[in-house]
């Protein structure tokens, strides 16, 4: 099952690359550097999903004290931090040639940096408590509270004046650009969602094996 998911992910990422470089057109105002969008946007959206799953799994853990739910939360948090970190890095690389700066403290960038730091703190909290039950309980509470930042990140471009452009996909009225940009973006989004699911499945397997080894 996990192996099949792995192969599906590999094919998805390969097709995504072909779509981003072979199908999507050269953007009129930014030129070819806009192709960074096909990796930047899927990474950020997949991290939203990762932190949403973390919050749901944390609620399930607090209600049922189910170790499997805690493992999903832990794995999802780790993959989410990886994805949002890469999302920030690719955004910064995209920002330099288009905005003229690697970083600016505008509302979107600041709120996403806070999101990254909060979930990094989530992972550090987990690692700093020896008792697994206590680590799971405390981090579940933090995981739920930290999820409140997700809508703040997403809507920051509407609530404050920012340098960052408004959302491409998840906005009122839907995507308004060309379909030659939309399809490569959707294929890459699907590929990164598959990658997220694959990484979480493998990380959960490792966490289960670690628990067995410690028992």
């Amino acid at each position, binding site marked *: 099952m996990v192996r099949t998911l792995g192969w599906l992910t590999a094919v998805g990422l390969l097709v995504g690359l072909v779509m981003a470089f072979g199908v999507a057109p050269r953007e009129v105002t930014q030129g070819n550097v806009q192709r960074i969008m096909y990796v930047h946007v899927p990474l950020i959206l997949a991290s939203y999903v990762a932190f949403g799953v973390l919050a749901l799994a944390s609620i399930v853990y607090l209600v049922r004290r189910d170790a499997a739910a805690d493992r999903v939360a832990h794995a999802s948090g780790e993959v989410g931090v990886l994805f949002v970190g890469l999302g920030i890095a690719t955004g910064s690389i995209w920002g330099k040639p288009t905005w003229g700066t690697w970083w600016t403290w505008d509302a979107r960038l600041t709120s996403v940096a806070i999101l990254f730091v909060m979930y990094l703190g989530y992972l550090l909290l987990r690692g700093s408590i020896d008792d697994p039950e206590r680590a799971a309980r405390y981090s579940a509470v933090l995981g739920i509270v930290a999820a409140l930042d997700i809508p703040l990140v997403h809507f920051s471009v509407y609530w404050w004046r920012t340098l960052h452009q408004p959302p491409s996909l998840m906005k009122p009225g839907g995507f308004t650009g060309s379909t030659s940009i939309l399809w490569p973006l959707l294929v890459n989004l699907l590929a990164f969602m598959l990658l997220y699911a694959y990484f979480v499945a493998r990380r959960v397997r490792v966490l289960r*094996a670690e628990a067995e080894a410690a028992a």
Partner: protein
Amino acid sequence: MIADNWGFVAAAYGLTALVLLLYWRRLAKRERELEALNQQPHAPRR
């Protein structure tokens, strides 16, 4: 004419590919280690 900035594109895709590959390898390595550890026969009790 807008500059294409291919170097920035390569940096973004290259960094992403490298980090994801390293994470995937780390998971695979840890999984193999734990598999070997969990398959070790327990020492006989005296």
